[in-house]
């Protein structure tokens, strides 16, 4: 039981706060929805009667189009928290408006309210799951989504029951339920913002990456043709379309029968309060049945019957309900029918439906989901609305509603027959598609957020474990991570001898999830594995399954004579142990490993460097410096990562210096970026400090680019005009990375425009300097001309990179490639494109450059626009020698060999004390030659 509960409530250190907030949020959102849903139904049915339901189904199908379009635009323009806040505030305002309209008794108000509640339900819950997906990674999602799902179901139950109580016992009118919702939604806004405070950065990164990956501009035809090519997807679409249509028909039958049951036979008036209370009670309890089915049966059925069997439950349940309705048009039959739909659809059937998408490649899956949400769902509901209208006339609903409802059951049964045929076809298709997907490794493991426990899926994966293809085995083991299934033990046990350490390690991890004590001996054998990570994984396994002897086991390994065992124990306890475990990691234990003799010594130090990253830095910080100065590179690398993890500011100067060292650079970048926004000020200081080595400064923009925050954009944008020309490119490149990776970040248009104009000024300036070069008569002037041309090319690239901060980066990049291509036709099309795209003052500076006019014309334009005026070569040399570009300065100094101007010679003299060694050396050489 404890284990069973743990599968729902497995919240780990650091997850408690945010999980409780999310749990409270989904609970509240569902409570409000289940206040509104009964209110919507009873208000509509009491005022307009069930005969109008088909119209509202069609209205909803049509209303979704503009709403989805608006919402998708808003989601691209706003951050996720802004989007949720804006939606919820709009909900509160519209609730007040709707409540006011209800007093006005306009005939259309029930239609609007019905449609509004339907949209509210879809929008708020999908927003919630969007945020939850961004807050958790795939592993966390697998552990925690079940808990959030429970919160949702309890919310639905609470909402339904409370509606029933407040309407029947407290006499609250159905209309006034809206005020309760306003209060609860206000609390939900506060919770959303608290989640943002705790996890904002992570959500930004995830949703940014998500937005980056998605391309909303794919046309309907493209989407349709992708789906048409896959039989698997066609079947999914078919099943979902029929599900939606049947749901609409069944919903109508249920509501019609409910209305009849609460209608006064004499007056024909509907008992609104009674209907609201009934609906509340029904929806609330439906949720309880749903949770019961989900908890007790869903995964068991899935394990035994497989996905093909599970997707048959809903049509079979509906078949039973329809048969009951056909035999007796009563409230009991209606509850059975709608109950089967509501409870199975959100439990057993949902689990099966999620699995159907598992073998679909990620990209195609996303497009299909968009297609289903945007077209299939709406089309099916709209068609169902039309069909209902027809059936009402055909079955004479107005004259004999009961008979019409009875006959409608036959139509439903007809649809169910088609549904079941499709489900049977799907059953075969699923296994084939899944096998192919595993072989081709098409499933993105980072996106798998459901528990794989379906029999056919497991069988296919177990088959793949025997594959001679190492990558297929690795992929299959990765898919099985956190899957618990007794059938896995033997195949995985044989993989513990696999030649790949990665596969041995992953197999151990999956075996660990089986929590089978008989595997401990296997884990003990793995402690002698040649790979250090496999040894650590084995140690983790042993500690986890040690039971009451754990303390003794831990002591035994910490005092073991073999340093490899001690290392594995220390790292495991540091990384995954409790506070009590960590207290056993004493200085004595650490020092015994730091001073371990023999061949194992560097590896032991490396392990300790890793463990220190999870330990109390106040107590163990004394070992950091020694490990950073260690002669072994891997030890230093591991210590750098640990410092980044701990956020030890004391070591920032050391890290900055290490940025120049190729061996550690990638680790150092990540470690410094791990400090987050608090390090940005320091990074900026280093970036603009000319005393700091260029090789260090060159790496700083990239580090800033790894911190995807608005402050990073501000700092980089500010730096463009301050930094050395040699660094400008790196600064703009880091901005480009932020722009394309995190589209929500804002770029100061004015500053970017200024930088753009400054870049064009440099371009014109170089054009004039080039114009003054004699026709390459000496080696020196040839070199200077080439260096200037290269600078001009880099200049043009920077111009386009800056344009990419304003306009869509991919469009600008393709325009750049066309501009630099040698084909005139490409250039012309790019200029035409940019002419339409680029706005504002920048155009007048930019287009003379792009037009590929003669060099003389560019020179003239430079004079016109910026007043640049170099009259002769000596003046150009003096200008370059006084500039900040060290390479051009060195080339200019070398050109002074052919020059007799006293000012130029004087400039060469002063270049002898330049901070750049190449400039100094060249100046010494030139002066020496002139004197001799």
């Amino acid at each position, binding site marked *: 039981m404890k284990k069973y509960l743990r599968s729902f409530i497995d919240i780990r250190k650091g997850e408690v706060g945010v999980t409780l907030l999310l749990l409270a949020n989904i609970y509240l959102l569902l409570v409000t929805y289940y206040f509104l849903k009964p209110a919507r139904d009873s208000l509509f049915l009491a005022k307009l009667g069930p005969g109008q339901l088909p119209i509202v189904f069609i209205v909803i199908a049509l209303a979704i189009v503009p709403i989805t379009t608006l919402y998708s635009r808003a989601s691209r323009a706003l951050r996720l928290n802004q989007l949720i806040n804006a939606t919820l505030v709009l909900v509160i305002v519209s609730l007040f408006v709707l409540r006011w309209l209800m007093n006005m008794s306009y005939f259309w108000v029930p239609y609007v309210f019905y449609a509004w509640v339907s949209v509210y339900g879809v929008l708020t819950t999908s927003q919630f799951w969007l945020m939850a997906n961004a807050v958790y990674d795939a592993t966390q999602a697998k552990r925690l989504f079940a808990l959030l799902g429970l919160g949702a179901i309890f919310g639905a139950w609470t909402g339904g029951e409370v509606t029933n109580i407040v309407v029947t016992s407290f006499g609250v009118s159905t209309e006034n339920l809206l005020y309760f919702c306003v209060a609860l939604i206000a609390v939900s806004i506060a919770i959303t913002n608290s989640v943002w405070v705790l996890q904002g950065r992570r959500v930004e990164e995830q949703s940014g990456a998500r937005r980056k990956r998605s391309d909303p501009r794919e046309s309907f035809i493209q989407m349709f043709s992708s789906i048409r090519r896959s039989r698997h997807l066609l079947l999914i679409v078919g099943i979902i379309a029929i599900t939606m249509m049947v749901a609409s028909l069944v919903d109508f039958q249920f509501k019609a029968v409910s209305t009849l049951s609460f209608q006064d036979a004499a007056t024909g008036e509907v008992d609104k309060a009674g209907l609201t209370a009934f609906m509340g009670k029904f929806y609330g309890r439906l949720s309880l049945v749903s949770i019961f089915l989900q908890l007790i049966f869903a995964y068991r059925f899935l394990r035994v019957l497989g996905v093909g069997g599970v997707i048959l439950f809903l049509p079979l349940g509906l078949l039973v309900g329809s048969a009951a309705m056909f035999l007796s048009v009563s409230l009991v039959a209606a509850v059975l029918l709608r109950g089967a739909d509501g409870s199975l659809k959100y439990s057993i059937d949902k689990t099966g439906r999620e699995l159907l998408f598992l073998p679909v490649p990620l990209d195609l899956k996303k497009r299909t989901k968009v297609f289903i949400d945007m077209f299939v769902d709406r089309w099916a509901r709209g068609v169902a609305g039309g069909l209902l209208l027809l059936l009402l006339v055909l079955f004479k609903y107005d004259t004999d509603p009961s008979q019409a409802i009875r006959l409608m059951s036959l139509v439903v049964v007809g649809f169910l027959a088609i549904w079941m045929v499709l489900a049977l076809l799907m059953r075969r298709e699923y296994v084939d598609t899944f096998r192919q997907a595993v072989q081709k490794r098409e499933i993105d493991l980072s996106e798998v957020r459901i528990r794989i426990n379906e029999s056919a899926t497991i069988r296919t994966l177990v088959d793949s474990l025997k594959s001679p293809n190492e990558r297929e085995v690795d992929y299959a083991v990765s898919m099985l991570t956190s899957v618990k299934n007794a059938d896995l033990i033997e195949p995985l046990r044989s993989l513990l001898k696999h030649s790949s350490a990665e596969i041995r390690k992953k197999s151990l991890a999956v075996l660990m999830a089986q929590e089978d004590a008989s595997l401990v001996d296997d884990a003990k054998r793995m402690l002698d594995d040649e790979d250090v990570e496999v040894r650590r994984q084995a140690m983790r396994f042993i500690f986890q399954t040690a039971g009451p002897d754990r303390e003794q086991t831990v002591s035994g390994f910490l005092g073991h004579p073999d340093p490899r065992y001690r290392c594995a124990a220390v790292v495991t306890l540091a990384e995954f142990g409790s506070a009590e475990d960590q207290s056993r990691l004493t200085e004595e234990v650490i020092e015994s490993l730091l001073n371990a003799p023999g061949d194992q010594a560097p590896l032991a130090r490396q392990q300790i460097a890793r463990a220190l990253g999870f330990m109390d830095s106040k107590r163990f910080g004394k070992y950091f410096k020694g490990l950073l100065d260690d002669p072994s590179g891997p030890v230093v690398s591991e210590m750098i990562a640990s410092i980044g993890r701990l956020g030890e500011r004391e070591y920032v100067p050391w890290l900055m210096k290490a940025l120049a060292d*190729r061996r550690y650079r990638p680790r150092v970048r990540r470690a410094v970026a791990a400090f987050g926004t608090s390090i940005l000020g320091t990074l900026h200081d280093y970036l603009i400090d000319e005393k700091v080595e260029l090789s260090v400064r060159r790496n700083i923009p990239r580090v800033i680019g790894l911190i995807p925050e608005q402050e990073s954009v501000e700092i980089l944008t500010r730096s463009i005009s301050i930094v050395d020309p040699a660094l400008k490119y790196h600064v703009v490149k880091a901005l480009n990375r932020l722009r394309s990776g995190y589209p929500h970040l804002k770029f100061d248009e004015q500053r970017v425009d200024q930088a753009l104009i400054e870049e064009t000024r440099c371009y014109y300036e170089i054009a004039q300097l080039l114009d003054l070069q004699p026709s390459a008569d000496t*080696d*020196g002037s*040839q*070199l200077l001309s*080439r*260096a200037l041309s*290269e600078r001009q090319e880099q200049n043009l690239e920077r111009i386009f990179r800056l344009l990419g901060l304003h306009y869509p980066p991919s469009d600008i990049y393709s325009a750049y490639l066309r501009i630099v291509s040698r084909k005139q036709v490409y250039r012309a099309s790019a200029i035409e494109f940019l002419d339409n795209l680029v706005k504002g003052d920048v155009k007048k500076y930019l287009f003379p450059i792009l037009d590929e006019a003669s060099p003389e014309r560019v020179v003239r334009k430079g004079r016109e626009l910026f007043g640049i005026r170099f009259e002769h070569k000596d003046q150009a040399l003096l200008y370059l020698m006084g500039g900040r570009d060290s*390479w051009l300065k*060195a*080339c200019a100094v*070398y050109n002074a060999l052919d020059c007799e101007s006293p000012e130029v010679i004087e400039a060469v003299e002063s270049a002898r004390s330049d901070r750049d060694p*190449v400039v100094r*050396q*060249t100046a010494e*050489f030139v002066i020496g030659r002139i004197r001799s």
Partner: protein
Amino acid sequence: MLTVIEKVIFLQNVEVFSEVATEQLAYLAAIAEEMEYANGESIYNVNDVSDALYLVVDGRVRLHLDERDIASAGPKEAFGTWALFDDEPRVTSATAEDDSRLLRIDREDFVDLLADHIQITQAVLKSVVSRLRSLVDRVGIERSAPEAP
């Protein structure tokens, strides 16, 4: 002793560095070592390990197989270029014909430099690809040429 700038002036003539920006050539210049060889002195022999590229600053170098001349390299010309990229032993011997001054770029230093300067790697790859492409084009043209009657 050549200055960095002078070395750059020489290096820009090496075909494989033709796409490398002059500023980046200055980094290559920093690892280019100046060597002097007397007339008739051997620079390397056939089947020696290929470990460096050479560039003639002054003098002339004879490339030969035993006594048979294969080619010769004069000022601003490079030889042994592919030693930077493959492990095959030398296919010719190189001997100074006059008193010669050469620039030598060691393969290990070169690889280290590439690891530090991605722009140099890109430029070197670009020129290798362009050479490959022109070879492919030439083969294509030769194959499509009509056979002699």
